[in-house]
């Protein structure tokens, strides 16, 4: 097992002031992600959590530069600092350049929600993983296959030598996701991006895949960017968490901190929207957030959450709050944090 020493200092990946804009010929530009700062520590897991349309997947795709042609990164940096190479700003690379292609799939790899649609249906899983290894490394097909079999074994696929010759449709959803993970790990990546990897799976299979990812992270020492909408999964797997709403990271910090003392009204609202595991007598009615997420076109001018925020006050609709430090490593974009409370005033 390659134990990667934590030689280099500082974070593995830093997103600094990153914005992503989608343009179309007959509509105004849509800012899908605006001024996002994120830090991925080496060997740690950052969970990016939010509801559909908040920009979490777009952010992840920007890191690999696999965004749609209509998307652009008008501002910001994506600094990737692997252990044994110079830091590079991914945001400035040409998506099709050799430099980007040596990173994509090799140093940074990705697994997706639906393994059926992200694996080729007409190639065996062994061939697909072999291809990945041969593409990035100088090995013979035979050596590649041996490594594929070792990888399949490591991700817990029974009978890996035979299963390497199976087509994706011959595997169950859980096994397919395992094959997908094996492929992502085939080049010992420094960073694994997992985009809702367990959402399509049953709970018991989900628990197994989360176990596997934790185990592999210990073995390989890779960092993980874990995208999910499920706060339960975040609590299970993350070291750090960033909560996104309508293209903004509204709150980020250590997972224990954020769950113990959520600062942003959106984070709190999300948490009170999930049923707690309680007995009938202790049960409280859920407190959902009113209304629905507006489209990025109708994003409020100030804080993006101000149109639904139960505690919004005078500056919220007009002025966009800056991230404010609300604890060690804990930052929140909310005017309430900056405001001093009047005597006797209570914020619910």
């Amino acid at each position: 097992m390659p134990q990667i020493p934590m030689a280099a200092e500082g974070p593995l990946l830093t997103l600094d002031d990153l914005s992503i804009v989608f343009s179309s010929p007959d509509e105004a530009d849509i800012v899908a992600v605006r001024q996002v700062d994120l830090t991925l520590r080496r060997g740690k897991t950052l969970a990016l959590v939010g509801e559909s349309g908040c920009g979490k997947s777009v952010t992840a795709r920007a890191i690999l530069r696999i965004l749609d042609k209509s998307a652009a990164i008008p501002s910001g940096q994506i600094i990737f600092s692997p252990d044994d190479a110079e830091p590079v700003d991914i945001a400035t690379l040409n998506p099709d350049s050799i430099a980007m292609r040596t990173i994509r799939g090799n140093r940074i790899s990705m697994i997706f929600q639906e393994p059926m649609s992200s694996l080729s249906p007409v190639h065996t899983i062994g061939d697909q993983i072999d291809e990945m290894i041969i593409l990035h490394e100088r090995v013979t097909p035979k050596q590649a296959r041996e490594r594929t079999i070792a990888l399949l074994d490591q991700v817990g696929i029974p009978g890996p030598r035979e299963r390497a010759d199976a087509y994706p449709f011959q595997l169950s959803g859980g096994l397919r996701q395992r094959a997908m993970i094996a492929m992502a790990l085939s080049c010992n990546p420094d960073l694994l991006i997992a985009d809702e990897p367990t959402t399509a799976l049953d709970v018991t299979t989900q628990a197994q895949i989360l176990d596997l990812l934790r185990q592999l992270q210990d073995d390989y020492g890779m960092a993980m960017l874990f995208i999910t909408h499920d706060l339960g999964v975040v609590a299970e797997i993350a070291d750090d968490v960033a909560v996104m709403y309508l293209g903004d990271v509204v709150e980020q910090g250590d997972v224990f901190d954020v769950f113990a003392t959520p600062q942003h009204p959106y984070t709190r609202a999300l948490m009170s929207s999930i049923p707690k595991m309680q007995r009938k007598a202790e049960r409280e009615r859920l407190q959902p957030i009113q209304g629905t997420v507006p489209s990025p076109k109708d994003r409020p001018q100030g804080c993006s959450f101000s149109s639904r925020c139960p505690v919004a006050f005078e500056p919220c609709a007009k002025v966009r709050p800056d991230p404010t430090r609300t604890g060690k490593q804990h930052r929140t974009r909310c005017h309430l944090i900056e405001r001093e409370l009047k005597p006797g005033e209570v914020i619910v």
Partner: protein
Amino acid sequence: MNDLIRVENLSKSFTLRRGLVGGLISLDALKDINLAVRPGETLAIVGESGCGKTTLGRCIVKAMTPNTGKVLYTPENGETIDLVGLKKRQMKPWRRDIRMIFQDPMSSLNPYMRVFDIVAEPLRIHKIAKGRELEDRVATALEKVGIDPAAGQRFPHAFSGGQRQRIGIARALVLDPRLVIADEAVSALDVSIQAQILNLLEDLKDDFGLTYIFISHDLGVVNYISDRVAVMYLGNIVELADTETLFERPRHPYTEVLLEALPIADPKRRAGKRTEARGEIPYIGNRPKGCPFHTRCRFAQDRCRNDRPELRKIDATEVACHFAETIELRGAYDSAPRPHISQKVSP
């Protein structure tokens, strides 16, 4: 008080052709299901994909006809009717009483129909109202679910996922049903919208005196909304108890596995490595002999591999496990970190 629905010895199998020249094979989707739905309760049916929960719901509304068994329905007049034997025309009056809400609000609403017509269609089919009265009833139903009746002339695509789910609920409610079967009705929704719909379902239940069969794979939601829970595995009910009993003291090893696998939104309760959920659900055409769960059960003995356990009563729980009295299983309400279950324990 009479049960609203009694399912007796219900079995349903599907026939598949194996390959182009192969023979027919039969898959048992439901095997010998016995279940009662009491008036006014919310009965949850939980299990993983392929366990038969949706098939059971569909057999109850008679969207599918079971191979054997009865679905006994007690309408308001108190007599008992077996829905299974009814012809299409004889079934029609009871379709007013038993309604369904589906998972995917996009594919369950006709994209070419206006919302008003979607909600009005059941009233028209059953010739219950027309003209002004029809309009009023549709408007009331839409208002009840939080949709502005003025938006009735729009098409489903103009609404968000949560709003579409509300329209689906309005369509179910417009006939004043007695039983609503909600099949994964909140699974496709974002958490904040899911909470709105759960609250709505609860309010409607109180307002209309409804009974729910709530089919779901999400035990957190089930614990929140249901009064009783039936756990299904490979076409069998393996455990049936009231919600608190089941979550406090599960009796079937599969129930424990499900509870353990549920991620809890509290990092302090992080489970660490878990190994209970070994293996995967077998293919339903390949149902293990004996107890269907024995291939993944940490307590499995020779007896489990040979005899199929029947559902039997222990205290307040019905459970299908040979060793239900002797095994100690962990519930879900402990707030302590969930420790790692040690290796195989013999009962």
